[in-house]
Protein backbone atom coordinates (compact mmCIF):
# COMPACT_ATOMS: atom_id res chain seq x y z
CA UNK A 1 0.00 0.00 0.00
CA UNK A 2 1.18 3.51 -0.75
CA UNK A 3 2.68 5.24 2.25
CA UNK A 4 2.80 9.03 2.75
CA UNK A 5 5.63 10.40 4.89
CA UNK A 6 7.49 13.64 5.57
CA UNK A 7 11.15 13.30 4.65
CA UNK A 8 14.38 15.07 3.84
CA UNK A 9 15.47 14.76 0.22
CA UNK A 10 18.64 12.90 1.11
CA UNK A 11 16.76 10.42 3.27
CA UNK A 12 14.23 9.88 0.49
CA UNK A 13 17.08 8.74 -1.76
CA UNK A 14 18.29 6.27 0.86
CA UNK A 15 14.83 4.87 1.61
CA UNK A 16 14.03 4.55 -2.09
CA UNK A 17 17.30 2.72 -2.68
CA UNK A 18 16.44 0.16 -0.02
CA UNK A 19 12.97 -0.25 -1.51
CA UNK A 20 14.62 -0.76 -4.91
CA UNK A 21 16.49 -3.73 -3.47
CA UNK A 22 19.85 -2.05 -2.90
CA UNK A 23 21.56 -3.76 0.03
CA UNK A 24 25.11 -2.47 -0.44
CA UNK A 25 26.27 1.09 0.11
CA UNK A 26 29.87 2.32 0.15
CA UNK A 27 30.52 5.97 0.92
CA UNK A 28 32.53 8.69 2.57
CA UNK A 29 31.15 11.67 4.51
CA UNK A 30 30.76 15.03 2.78
CA UNK A 31 28.28 17.88 3.23
CA UNK A 32 25.49 18.29 2.09
CA UNK A 33 24.66 14.62 1.47
CA UNK A 34 25.81 12.83 4.61
CA UNK A 35 22.22 12.02 5.66
CA UNK A 36 22.23 9.37 2.93
CA UNK A 37 25.17 7.57 4.56
CA UNK A 38 23.69 8.01 8.03
CA UNK A 39 20.35 6.57 6.93
CA UNK A 40 22.04 3.62 5.26
CA UNK A 41 24.26 2.99 8.29
CA UNK A 42 21.16 2.76 10.44
CA UNK A 43 18.86 0.83 8.11
CA UNK A 44 20.96 -1.51 5.99
CA UNK A 45 22.17 -3.79 8.80
CA UNK A 46 18.50 -4.25 9.80
CA UNK A 47 17.56 -5.59 6.38
CA UNK A 48 20.52 -7.89 5.84
CA UNK A 49 22.55 -5.31 3.95
CA UNK A 50 26.05 -3.88 4.20
CA UNK A 51 26.93 -0.27 4.91
CA UNK A 52 30.64 0.42 4.77
CA UNK A 53 32.34 3.77 5.33
CA UNK A 54 35.40 3.72 3.12
CA UNK A 55 38.71 5.48 3.75
CA UNK A 56 38.12 7.86 0.85
CA UNK A 57 35.84 8.64 -2.06
CA UNK A 58 38.35 6.86 -4.28
CA UNK A 59 38.13 3.67 -2.23
CA UNK A 60 34.33 3.85 -2.00
CA UNK A 61 33.80 4.09 -5.77
CA UNK A 62 36.17 1.16 -6.24
CA UNK A 63 34.22 -0.87 -3.69
CA UNK A 64 31.18 -0.02 -5.80
CA UNK A 65 33.09 -1.21 -8.89
CA UNK A 66 33.86 -4.56 -7.25
CA UNK A 67 30.32 -4.96 -5.94
CA UNK A 68 28.77 -4.02 -9.29
CA UNK A 69 31.03 -6.56 -11.02
CA UNK A 70 29.41 -9.32 -8.96
CA UNK A 71 26.02 -8.29 -10.36
CA UNK A 72 24.89 -6.86 -7.03
CA UNK A 73 22.71 -3.73 -6.88
CA UNK A 74 24.99 -1.13 -5.31
CA UNK A 75 25.29 2.61 -4.78
CA UNK A 76 27.42 5.41 -3.43
CA UNK A 77 26.70 9.08 -2.79
CA UNK A 78 28.78 12.19 -2.47
CA UNK A 79 28.92 15.90 -3.23
CA UNK A 80 30.88 17.83 -5.82
CA UNK A 81 34.53 17.60 -4.58
CA UNK A 82 33.89 13.96 -3.71
CA UNK A 83 32.56 13.24 -7.19
CA UNK A 84 35.79 14.63 -8.66
CA UNK A 85 37.63 12.00 -6.60
CA UNK A 86 35.24 9.28 -7.74
CA UNK A 87 35.65 10.19 -11.39
CA UNK A 88 38.50 7.73 -11.96
CA UNK A 89 36.24 4.94 -10.78
CA UNK A 90 33.30 6.21 -12.83
CA UNK A 91 35.42 5.93 -15.97
CA UNK A 92 36.46 2.35 -15.11
CA UNK A 93 32.87 1.34 -14.30
CA UNK A 94 31.65 2.85 -17.57
CA UNK A 95 34.55 1.22 -19.44
CA UNK A 96 33.63 -2.16 -17.95
CA UNK A 97 29.88 -1.80 -18.65
CA UNK A 98 28.69 -2.66 -15.15
CA UNK A 99 25.67 -0.96 -13.51
CA UNK A 100 25.77 1.30 -10.45
CA UNK A 101 23.90 4.22 -8.93
CA UNK A 102 25.90 7.30 -7.97
CA UNK A 103 24.35 10.30 -6.22
CA UNK A 104 25.81 13.82 -6.44
CA UNK A 105 24.13 16.32 -4.12
CA UNK A 106 25.90 19.32 -5.60
CA UNK A 107 27.54 22.18 -3.74
CA UNK A 108 29.29 25.30 -5.00
CA UNK A 109 32.74 25.04 -6.59
CA UNK A 110 35.37 24.90 -7.97
CA UNK A 111 37.88 23.55 -5.47
CA UNK A 112 36.58 23.15 -1.98
CA UNK A 113 34.02 25.79 -2.98
CA UNK A 114 31.27 26.00 -0.41
CA UNK A 115 28.52 23.87 1.04
CA UNK A 116 25.52 25.73 -0.36
CA UNK A 117 23.47 24.36 -3.29
CA UNK A 118 24.78 24.51 -6.82
CA UNK A 119 24.33 23.03 -10.29
CA UNK A 120 27.85 23.64 -11.47
CA UNK A 121 28.68 19.94 -11.95
CA UNK A 122 26.43 19.79 -15.02
CA UNK A 123 29.38 19.53 -17.39
CA UNK A 124 31.09 16.96 -15.18
CA UNK A 125 27.96 14.80 -15.06
CA UNK A 126 26.78 15.09 -18.66
CA UNK A 127 30.04 15.46 -20.59
CA UNK A 128 32.32 13.02 -18.83
CA UNK A 129 34.19 14.01 -15.71
CA UNK A 130 36.44 11.01 -15.91
CA UNK A 131 38.68 10.19 -18.88
CA UNK A 132 37.64 8.57 -22.13
CA UNK A 133 34.49 8.40 -24.23
CA UNK A 134 31.62 7.47 -21.96
CA UNK A 135 28.19 8.54 -20.83
CA UNK A 136 26.17 8.25 -17.67
CA UNK A 137 22.41 8.45 -17.39
CA UNK A 138 21.91 11.69 -15.44
CA UNK A 139 18.66 12.22 -13.55
CA UNK A 140 17.77 15.61 -12.05
CA UNK A 141 15.15 15.53 -9.30
CA UNK A 142 13.22 18.74 -8.53
CA UNK A 143 11.39 17.56 -5.42
CA UNK A 144 11.78 15.18 -2.52
CA UNK A 145 9.24 12.94 -4.26
CA UNK A 146 11.49 12.78 -7.31
CA UNK A 147 14.56 12.09 -5.15
CA UNK A 148 12.78 8.83 -4.35
CA UNK A 149 11.18 8.02 -7.70
CA UNK A 150 14.27 8.84 -9.77
CA UNK A 151 16.46 6.77 -7.44
CA UNK A 152 14.26 3.76 -8.16
CA UNK A 153 14.19 4.61 -11.85
CA UNK A 154 17.97 5.10 -11.82
CA UNK A 155 18.64 1.60 -10.50
CA UNK A 156 16.37 0.14 -13.15
CA UNK A 157 17.98 2.07 -16.00
CA UNK A 158 21.47 1.16 -14.75
CA UNK A 159 20.60 -2.54 -14.83
CA UNK A 160 18.75 -2.26 -18.12
CA UNK A 161 21.72 -0.72 -19.94
CA UNK A 162 24.68 -1.80 -17.76
CA UNK A 163 25.51 1.85 -17.18
CA UNK A 164 26.02 4.27 -14.33
CA UNK A 165 22.92 6.19 -13.34
CA UNK A 166 23.76 9.45 -11.62
CA UNK A 167 21.25 11.33 -9.49
CA UNK A 168 22.34 14.96 -10.01
CA UNK A 169 20.62 16.72 -7.14
CA UNK A 170 21.56 19.89 -5.30
CA UNK A 171 21.97 20.87 -1.67
CA UNK A 172 18.50 22.41 -1.49
CA UNK A 173 16.58 19.35 -2.62
CA UNK A 174 18.88 17.22 -0.49
CA UNK A 175 18.25 19.18 2.68
CA UNK A 176 14.60 20.24 2.40
CA UNK A 177 11.66 18.28 3.76
CA UNK A 178 8.48 17.55 1.82
CA UNK A 179 5.71 15.00 2.10
CA UNK A 180 6.22 12.11 -0.27
CA UNK A 181 4.45 8.92 -1.22
CA UNK A 182 6.19 5.59 -1.61
CA UNK A 183 4.24 3.51 -4.08
CA UNK A 184 4.59 -0.25 -3.94
CA UNK A 185 6.58 -0.98 -7.05
CA UNK A 186 7.72 -4.21 -8.60
CA UNK A 187 11.51 -4.28 -8.83
CA UNK A 188 12.50 -5.72 -12.19
CA UNK A 189 15.47 -8.08 -12.25
CA UNK A 190 17.89 -8.49 -15.11
CA UNK A 191 20.06 -11.40 -16.23
CA UNK A 192 23.76 -10.76 -15.55
CA UNK A 193 25.68 -13.57 -17.23
CA UNK A 194 28.86 -11.45 -17.12
CA UNK A 195 28.88 -11.22 -13.30
CA UNK A 196 31.77 -12.44 -11.15
CA UNK A 197 30.27 -15.26 -9.10
CA UNK A 198 32.97 -17.92 -9.33
CA UNK A 199 33.05 -20.35 -12.26
CA UNK A 200 32.12 -23.34 -10.02
CA UNK A 201 33.99 -25.27 -12.72
CA UNK A 202 30.93 -25.00 -14.93
CA UNK A 203 31.78 -22.18 -17.33
CA UNK A 204 34.70 -20.25 -18.79
CA UNK A 205 35.90 -17.50 -16.51
CA UNK A 206 34.23 -14.10 -16.59
CA UNK A 207 36.50 -11.07 -16.87
CA UNK A 208 35.38 -7.57 -15.91
CA UNK A 209 37.85 -5.23 -17.53
CA UNK A 210 38.34 -1.94 -19.33
CA UNK A 211 41.80 -2.66 -20.80
CA UNK A 212 42.10 -3.36 -24.53
CA UNK A 213 45.68 -2.97 -25.69
CA UNK A 214 44.85 -3.63 -29.34
CA UNK A 215 43.49 -0.34 -30.71
CA UNK A 216 41.12 -2.01 -33.16
CA UNK A 217 39.54 -3.97 -30.31
CA UNK A 218 39.24 -0.87 -28.14
CA UNK A 219 37.72 1.05 -31.03
CA UNK A 220 35.18 -1.72 -31.64
CA UNK A 221 34.30 -1.71 -27.94
CA UNK A 222 33.73 2.06 -28.06
CA UNK A 223 31.55 1.84 -31.16
CA UNK A 224 29.54 -0.96 -29.58
CA UNK A 225 29.05 1.08 -26.40
CA UNK A 226 27.90 4.12 -28.36
CA UNK A 227 25.32 2.02 -30.20
CA UNK A 228 23.89 1.32 -26.75
CA UNK A 229 24.06 5.02 -25.87
CA UNK A 230 22.12 5.83 -29.06
CA UNK A 231 19.31 3.53 -27.89
CA UNK A 232 19.29 5.31 -24.52
CA UNK A 233 19.12 8.69 -26.28
CA UNK A 234 16.19 7.47 -28.34
CA UNK A 235 14.19 5.83 -25.56
CA UNK A 236 14.94 7.44 -22.24
CA UNK A 237 14.78 11.26 -22.35
CA UNK A 238 12.35 12.58 -19.72
CA UNK A 239 11.14 16.13 -19.29
CA UNK A 240 8.22 18.16 -18.00
CA UNK A 241 6.48 20.94 -19.96
CA UNK A 242 4.64 23.70 -18.12
CA UNK A 243 2.46 26.31 -19.89
CA UNK A 244 4.28 25.61 -23.14
CA UNK A 245 1.14 25.33 -25.36
CA UNK A 246 1.11 29.01 -26.35
CA UNK A 247 4.50 30.05 -24.93
CA UNK A 248 6.56 32.71 -26.69
CA UNK A 249 9.43 32.53 -24.24
CA UNK A 250 10.71 29.13 -23.09
CA UNK A 251 12.43 28.92 -19.74
CA UNK A 252 14.70 25.88 -19.38
CA UNK A 253 15.64 24.84 -15.86
CA UNK A 254 16.17 21.68 -13.83
CA UNK A 255 16.27 20.79 -10.13
CA UNK A 256 15.68 23.54 -7.61
CA UNK A 257 16.15 26.21 -10.31
CA UNK A 258 13.06 24.84 -12.09
CA UNK A 259 10.92 25.46 -9.01
CA UNK A 260 11.99 29.10 -8.88
CA UNK A 261 11.50 29.36 -12.64
CA UNK A 262 7.97 27.96 -12.40
CA UNK A 263 6.99 30.76 -10.00
CA UNK A 264 8.52 33.28 -12.38
CA UNK A 265 6.55 31.84 -15.30
CA UNK A 266 3.29 32.25 -13.34
CA UNK A 267 4.23 35.83 -12.40
CA UNK A 268 5.15 36.60 -16.02
CA UNK A 269 1.81 35.30 -17.26
CA UNK A 270 0.08 37.70 -14.81
CA UNK A 271 1.92 40.52 -16.61
CA UNK A 272 0.85 39.25 -19.99
CA UNK A 273 4.20 37.68 -20.86
CA UNK A 274 3.57 34.32 -22.51
CA UNK A 275 6.25 32.29 -20.77
CA UNK A 276 6.49 28.52 -20.43
CA UNK A 277 8.93 26.04 -18.92
CA UNK A 278 10.71 22.96 -20.15
CA UNK A 279 12.25 21.06 -17.24
CA UNK A 280 14.71 18.38 -18.29
CA UNK A 281 14.41 15.41 -15.91
CA UNK A 282 17.13 13.50 -17.71
CA UNK A 283 20.12 15.76 -18.33
CA UNK A 284 21.70 12.94 -20.29
CA UNK A 285 20.04 11.97 -22.48
CA UNK A 286 19.08 15.63 -22.88
CA UNK A 287 15.48 16.14 -24.10
CA UNK A 288 16.66 17.38 -27.49
CA UNK A 289 13.38 16.75 -29.29
CA UNK A 290 11.41 18.88 -26.82
CA UNK A 291 13.85 21.77 -27.25
CA UNK A 292 13.91 21.39 -31.03
CA UNK A 293 10.11 21.50 -31.14
CA UNK A 294 10.03 24.55 -28.88
CA UNK A 295 12.56 26.32 -31.09
CA UNK A 296 10.01 26.18 -33.92
CA UNK A 297 7.41 28.20 -32.02
CA UNK A 298 8.96 30.38 -29.30
CA UNK A 299 10.81 33.66 -29.77
CA UNK A 300 13.66 32.72 -27.46
CA UNK A 301 14.92 30.73 -24.48
CA UNK A 302 16.05 31.63 -20.98
CA UNK A 303 18.31 29.08 -19.30
CA UNK A 304 18.03 29.38 -15.51
CA UNK A 305 20.95 27.76 -13.74
CA UNK A 306 22.88 27.71 -10.48
CA UNK A 307 26.16 27.89 -12.36
CA UNK A 308 28.00 30.23 -14.70
CA UNK A 309 25.99 28.74 -17.56
CA UNK A 310 26.56 25.11 -18.43
CA UNK A 311 23.23 23.64 -19.57
CA UNK A 312 22.83 26.71 -21.80
CA UNK A 313 25.23 25.07 -24.26
CA UNK A 314 22.92 22.07 -24.61
CA UNK A 315 19.92 24.40 -24.95
CA UNK A 316 21.68 26.15 -27.87
CA UNK A 317 22.67 22.82 -29.47
CA UNK A 318 19.26 21.21 -29.04
CA UNK A 319 17.44 24.27 -30.38
CA UNK A 320 19.82 24.40 -33.33
CA UNK A 321 20.72 28.00 -32.41
CA UNK A 322 17.49 28.99 -34.17
CA UNK A 323 16.40 31.37 -31.42
CA UNK A 324 18.34 33.51 -28.95
CA UNK A 325 19.18 31.99 -25.56
CA UNK A 326 19.62 34.17 -22.46
CA UNK A 327 21.24 33.09 -19.22
CA UNK A 328 19.71 33.84 -15.85
CA UNK A 329 22.09 32.53 -13.25
CA UNK A 330 23.49 32.69 -9.76
CA UNK A 331 26.57 30.80 -8.67
CA UNK A 332 28.66 29.79 -5.70
CA UNK A 333 25.71 28.59 -3.63
CA UNK A 334 23.34 31.50 -4.35
CA UNK A 335 19.84 30.88 -5.71
CA UNK A 336 17.98 33.35 -7.96
CA UNK A 337 14.72 34.72 -6.61
CA UNK A 338 11.55 34.43 -8.73
CA UNK A 339 11.82 38.22 -9.25
CA UNK A 340 15.30 37.88 -10.73
CA UNK A 341 14.03 35.26 -13.18
CA UNK A 342 10.96 37.40 -13.90
CA UNK A 343 13.24 40.32 -14.74
CA UNK A 344 15.06 38.21 -17.33
CA UNK A 345 11.69 37.23 -18.81
CA UNK A 346 10.69 40.91 -19.05
CA UNK A 347 13.92 41.57 -20.94
CA UNK A 348 13.28 38.61 -23.21
CA UNK A 349 9.79 39.99 -23.89
CA UNK A 350 11.48 43.18 -25.14
CA UNK A 351 13.81 41.11 -27.30
CA UNK A 352 16.79 41.63 -25.02
CA UNK A 353 18.63 38.32 -24.72
Amino acid sequence: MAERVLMKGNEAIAEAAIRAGCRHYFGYPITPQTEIAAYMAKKLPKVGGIFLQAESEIASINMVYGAAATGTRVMTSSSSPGISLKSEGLSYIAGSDVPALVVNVQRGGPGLGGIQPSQSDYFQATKGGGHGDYRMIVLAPASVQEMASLTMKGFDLADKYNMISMILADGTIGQMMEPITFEDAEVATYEKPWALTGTEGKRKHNIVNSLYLKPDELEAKNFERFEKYAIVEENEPMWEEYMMEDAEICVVAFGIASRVAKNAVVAARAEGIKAGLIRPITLWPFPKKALAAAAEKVNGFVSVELSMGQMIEDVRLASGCKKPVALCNRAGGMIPSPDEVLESLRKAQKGEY
Partner: protein
Amino acid sequence: MAVVFQKPKSLADVPLHYCPGCPHGIIHRLVAEALDELGIEGKAIGVAPVGCAVMAYDYFTCDMIEAPHGRAPAVATGIKRCRPENIVFTYQGDGDLASIGMAETVHSAARNENITVIFVNNAIYGMTGGQMAPTSLPGQVTQTSPYGRDVNHCGWPIRVCEMLATLEGPEYVTRVAVNNVKNVKNAKKAIKKAFQNQIEGKGFSLVEVVSACPTNWGMTPQKALEWVESDMLPYYPIGVYKDRSAAKEEK
Protein backbone atom coordinates in the same frame (compact mmCIF):
# COMPACT_ATOMS: atom_id res chain seq x y z
CA MET B 1 52.59 -43.43 -17.14
CA ALA B 2 52.52 -41.41 -13.91
CA VAL B 3 52.33 -37.64 -14.30
CA VAL B 4 55.00 -36.08 -12.08
CA PHE B 5 54.65 -32.46 -13.15
CA GLN B 6 51.90 -30.48 -14.88
CA LYS B 7 50.43 -27.04 -15.24
CA PRO B 8 48.02 -26.17 -12.41
CA LYS B 9 44.37 -26.21 -13.47
CA SER B 10 44.01 -22.63 -12.22
CA LEU B 11 46.62 -21.37 -14.68
CA ALA B 12 45.43 -20.89 -18.26
CA ASP B 13 47.35 -22.60 -21.05
CA VAL B 14 48.39 -19.37 -22.74
CA PRO B 15 51.76 -17.67 -23.32
CA LEU B 16 52.61 -15.19 -20.52
CA HIS B 17 53.85 -11.76 -21.60
CA TYR B 18 56.49 -11.48 -18.85
CA CYS B 19 60.15 -10.81 -19.69
CA PRO B 20 62.62 -13.72 -19.78
CA GLY B 21 63.81 -14.51 -16.26
CA CYS B 22 60.95 -12.68 -14.54
CA PRO B 23 59.72 -14.45 -11.39
CA HIS B 24 56.07 -13.43 -11.99
CA GLY B 25 55.67 -16.80 -13.74
CA ILE B 26 56.81 -18.61 -10.59
CA ILE B 27 54.52 -16.55 -8.36
CA HIS B 28 51.53 -17.07 -10.68
CA ARG B 29 52.18 -20.81 -10.49
CA LEU B 30 52.35 -20.74 -6.67
CA VAL B 31 49.00 -18.93 -6.47
CA ALA B 32 47.44 -21.32 -9.00
CA GLU B 33 48.78 -24.37 -7.15
CA ALA B 34 47.34 -23.06 -3.90
CA LEU B 35 43.92 -22.58 -5.55
CA ASP B 36 44.11 -26.10 -7.02
CA GLU B 37 45.25 -27.82 -3.84
CA LEU B 38 42.60 -26.11 -1.71
CA GLY B 39 39.94 -26.90 -4.35
CA ILE B 40 38.77 -23.29 -4.53
CA GLU B 41 39.36 -22.40 -8.19
CA GLY B 42 35.62 -22.46 -8.89
CA LYS B 43 34.94 -20.10 -6.00
CA ALA B 44 37.87 -17.75 -6.57
CA ILE B 45 37.59 -14.19 -7.87
CA GLY B 46 40.93 -12.52 -8.59
CA VAL B 47 41.70 -8.82 -8.81
CA ALA B 48 44.47 -7.83 -11.22
CA PRO B 49 46.47 -4.63 -10.64
CA VAL B 50 47.88 -1.96 -12.89
CA GLY B 51 51.52 -2.77 -13.57
CA CYS B 52 53.31 -5.80 -14.97
CA ALA B 53 50.59 -8.20 -13.78
CA VAL B 54 47.80 -6.16 -15.36
CA MET B 55 46.93 -9.01 -17.70
CA ALA B 56 46.76 -11.61 -14.94
CA TYR B 57 43.05 -11.76 -15.76
CA ASP B 58 43.99 -13.76 -18.85
CA TYR B 59 46.31 -16.10 -16.94
CA PHE B 60 44.18 -17.31 -14.03
CA THR B 61 41.21 -19.46 -15.00
CA CYS B 62 38.97 -18.20 -12.19
CA ASP B 63 36.69 -15.14 -12.51
CA MET B 64 38.79 -11.97 -12.71
CA ILE B 65 38.49 -8.19 -12.62
CA GLU B 66 41.06 -5.54 -13.51
CA ALA B 67 41.24 -2.74 -10.91
CA PRO B 68 42.40 0.86 -11.29
CA HIS B 69 45.99 1.51 -10.16
CA GLY B 70 46.31 0.80 -6.43
CA ARG B 71 42.60 0.18 -5.87
CA ALA B 72 42.64 -3.63 -5.90
CA PRO B 73 41.97 -4.01 -2.14
CA ALA B 74 38.96 -1.66 -2.41
CA VAL B 75 37.62 -3.56 -5.42
CA ALA B 76 38.23 -6.83 -3.55
CA THR B 77 36.37 -5.40 -0.55
CA GLY B 78 33.35 -4.62 -2.72
CA ILE B 79 33.37 -8.15 -4.14
CA LYS B 80 33.87 -9.90 -0.81
CA ARG B 81 31.17 -7.86 0.98
CA CYS B 82 28.68 -8.86 -1.70
CA ARG B 83 29.81 -12.47 -2.05
CA PRO B 84 31.37 -13.63 1.22
CA GLU B 85 31.10 -17.24 0.03
CA ASN B 86 33.66 -16.61 -2.71
CA ILE B 87 37.45 -16.54 -2.26
CA VAL B 88 38.77 -13.13 -3.25
CA PHE B 89 42.41 -12.29 -3.86
CA THR B 90 44.45 -9.41 -5.24
CA TYR B 91 47.77 -9.68 -7.04
CA GLN B 92 49.69 -6.39 -6.88
CA GLY B 93 53.13 -4.93 -7.40
CA ASP B 94 55.05 -2.46 -5.24
CA GLY B 95 54.05 0.71 -7.10
CA ASP B 96 50.42 -0.36 -7.08
CA LEU B 97 50.23 -1.54 -3.46
CA ALA B 98 52.79 0.60 -1.62
CA SER B 99 52.62 3.91 -3.47
CA ILE B 100 49.37 4.90 -5.16
CA GLY B 101 47.35 2.25 -3.33
CA MET B 102 48.82 2.63 0.16
CA ALA B 103 45.60 3.98 1.68
CA GLU B 104 43.57 1.07 0.28
CA THR B 105 46.22 -1.39 1.55
CA VAL B 106 46.37 0.01 5.07
CA HIS B 107 42.63 0.40 5.49
CA SER B 108 41.68 -3.02 4.13
CA ALA B 109 44.25 -4.45 6.58
CA ALA B 110 42.85 -2.32 9.40
CA ARG B 111 39.34 -3.60 8.65
CA ASN B 112 40.73 -7.14 8.65
CA GLU B 113 38.94 -7.53 5.32
CA ASN B 114 38.67 -11.28 4.70
CA ILE B 115 40.74 -11.26 1.51
CA THR B 116 44.13 -12.57 0.37
CA VAL B 117 46.71 -10.11 -0.93
CA ILE B 118 49.71 -11.26 -2.98
CA PHE B 119 52.23 -8.40 -2.98
CA VAL B 120 55.12 -8.74 -5.43
CA ASN B 121 58.00 -6.48 -4.39
CA ASN B 122 60.72 -6.12 -7.00
CA ALA B 123 61.77 -2.61 -5.99
CA ILE B 124 60.94 -0.99 -9.33
CA TYR B 125 58.11 0.02 -11.67
CA GLY B 126 58.43 -2.65 -14.34
CA MET B 127 55.60 -2.02 -16.79
CA THR B 128 56.48 1.63 -17.40
CA GLY B 129 60.13 0.81 -17.98
CA GLY B 130 61.99 0.92 -14.68
CA GLN B 131 61.19 3.96 -12.55
CA MET B 132 61.87 4.37 -8.83
CA ALA B 133 59.37 2.51 -6.64
CA PRO B 134 58.39 3.12 -3.00
CA THR B 135 60.48 0.03 -2.29
CA SER B 136 63.55 0.92 -4.40
CA LEU B 137 66.63 0.62 -2.21
CA PRO B 138 68.80 3.57 -1.11
CA GLY B 139 71.28 4.24 -3.88
CA GLN B 140 69.37 2.11 -6.40
CA VAL B 141 69.71 3.42 -9.94
CA THR B 142 66.44 3.63 -11.87
CA GLN B 143 65.16 5.70 -14.78
CA THR B 144 63.85 8.36 -12.35
CA SER B 145 66.72 8.06 -9.87
CA PRO B 146 69.55 8.01 -12.43
CA TYR B 147 72.16 8.99 -9.83
CA GLY B 148 70.89 6.44 -7.34
CA ARG B 149 68.01 6.83 -4.87
CA ASP B 150 68.96 9.78 -2.66
CA VAL B 151 67.07 9.30 0.60
CA ASN B 152 67.58 12.97 1.52
CA HIS B 153 65.78 13.99 -1.64
CA CYS B 154 63.01 11.40 -2.05
CA GLY B 155 62.84 9.54 1.24
CA TRP B 156 63.33 5.99 2.36
CA PRO B 157 61.91 2.77 0.97
CA ILE B 158 58.85 1.48 2.78
CA ARG B 159 58.77 -1.84 4.60
CA VAL B 160 55.13 -2.81 4.11
CA CYS B 161 55.03 -5.93 6.32
CA GLU B 162 56.68 -4.22 9.28
CA MET B 163 54.26 -1.29 8.97
CA LEU B 164 51.10 -3.40 8.63
CA ALA B 165 52.18 -5.57 11.56
CA THR B 166 51.75 -2.56 13.84
CA LEU B 167 48.01 -2.59 13.09
CA GLU B 168 45.54 -4.41 15.27
CA GLY B 169 43.51 -5.42 12.21
CA PRO B 170 45.28 -7.90 9.96
CA GLU B 171 45.36 -11.65 10.56
CA TYR B 172 48.51 -12.65 8.74
CA VAL B 173 51.39 -10.60 7.34
CA THR B 174 54.46 -12.37 6.04
CA ARG B 175 57.43 -11.84 3.72
CA VAL B 176 58.83 -14.55 1.50
CA ALA B 177 61.16 -14.63 -1.52
CA VAL B 178 61.45 -16.61 -4.75
CA ASN B 179 65.20 -16.38 -5.40
CA ASN B 180 66.02 -20.04 -4.69
CA VAL B 181 64.28 -23.39 -4.42
CA LYS B 182 64.06 -23.37 -0.64
CA ASN B 183 62.52 -19.91 -0.60
CA VAL B 184 60.07 -20.80 -3.38
CA LYS B 185 58.87 -23.77 -1.33
CA ASN B 186 58.36 -21.56 1.71
CA ALA B 187 56.61 -18.94 -0.42
CA LYS B 188 54.17 -21.63 -1.57
CA LYS B 189 53.38 -22.54 2.05
CA ALA B 190 52.76 -18.91 2.97
CA ILE B 191 50.49 -18.31 -0.03
CA LYS B 192 48.49 -21.44 0.71
CA LYS B 193 48.12 -20.39 4.33
CA ALA B 194 46.94 -16.93 3.22
CA PHE B 195 44.12 -18.59 1.24
CA GLN B 196 43.40 -21.11 4.00
CA ASN B 197 42.96 -18.21 6.42
CA GLN B 198 40.30 -16.73 4.16
CA ILE B 199 38.48 -20.07 3.89
CA GLU B 200 38.42 -20.20 7.68
CA GLY B 201 37.17 -16.61 7.85
CA LYS B 202 40.22 -15.39 9.75
CA GLY B 203 40.66 -12.18 7.77
CA PHE B 204 43.23 -10.08 5.97
CA SER B 205 46.27 -12.08 4.88
CA LEU B 206 49.13 -10.48 2.96
CA VAL B 207 52.10 -12.30 1.50
CA GLU B 208 54.91 -10.03 0.34
CA VAL B 209 56.98 -11.87 -2.23
CA VAL B 210 60.43 -10.37 -2.72
CA SER B 211 61.04 -10.78 -6.42
CA ALA B 212 63.43 -9.65 -9.15
CA CYS B 213 63.27 -7.55 -12.30
CA PRO B 214 66.26 -8.57 -14.45
CA THR B 215 65.16 -6.38 -17.37
CA ASN B 216 64.84 -3.10 -15.49
CA TRP B 217 67.60 -3.83 -13.01
CA GLY B 218 69.84 -4.34 -16.05
CA MET B 219 71.04 -7.74 -14.85
CA THR B 220 71.02 -11.31 -16.10
CA PRO B 221 68.30 -13.40 -14.43
CA GLN B 222 71.00 -15.24 -12.47
CA LYS B 223 72.66 -12.01 -11.29
CA ALA B 224 69.27 -10.54 -10.36
CA LEU B 225 68.48 -13.46 -8.06
CA GLU B 226 71.89 -12.99 -6.44
CA TRP B 227 71.10 -9.29 -5.94
CA VAL B 228 67.85 -10.28 -4.18
CA GLU B 229 69.96 -12.24 -1.69
CA SER B 230 72.76 -9.68 -1.28
CA ASP B 231 70.81 -6.37 -1.37
CA MET B 232 67.04 -6.87 -1.13
CA LEU B 233 66.73 -9.39 1.69
CA PRO B 234 68.95 -7.49 4.15
CA TYR B 235 66.57 -4.49 3.84
CA TYR B 236 63.45 -6.68 3.51
CA PRO B 237 64.05 -9.67 5.81
CA ILE B 238 62.05 -12.84 5.25
CA GLY B 239 59.76 -13.71 8.13
CA VAL B 240 56.30 -13.81 9.64
CA TYR B 241 55.48 -10.32 10.89
CA LYS B 242 52.02 -11.07 12.19
CA ASP B 243 50.06 -14.27 12.66
CA ARG B 244 47.23 -13.62 15.07
CA SER B 245 45.91 -17.17 15.23
CA ALA B 246 49.36 -18.67 15.82
CA ALA B 247 50.05 -16.09 18.53
CA LYS B 248 46.75 -16.99 20.23
CA GLU B 249 47.60 -20.69 20.15
CA GLU B 250 50.96 -20.01 21.79
CA LYS B 251 49.22 -18.27 24.65
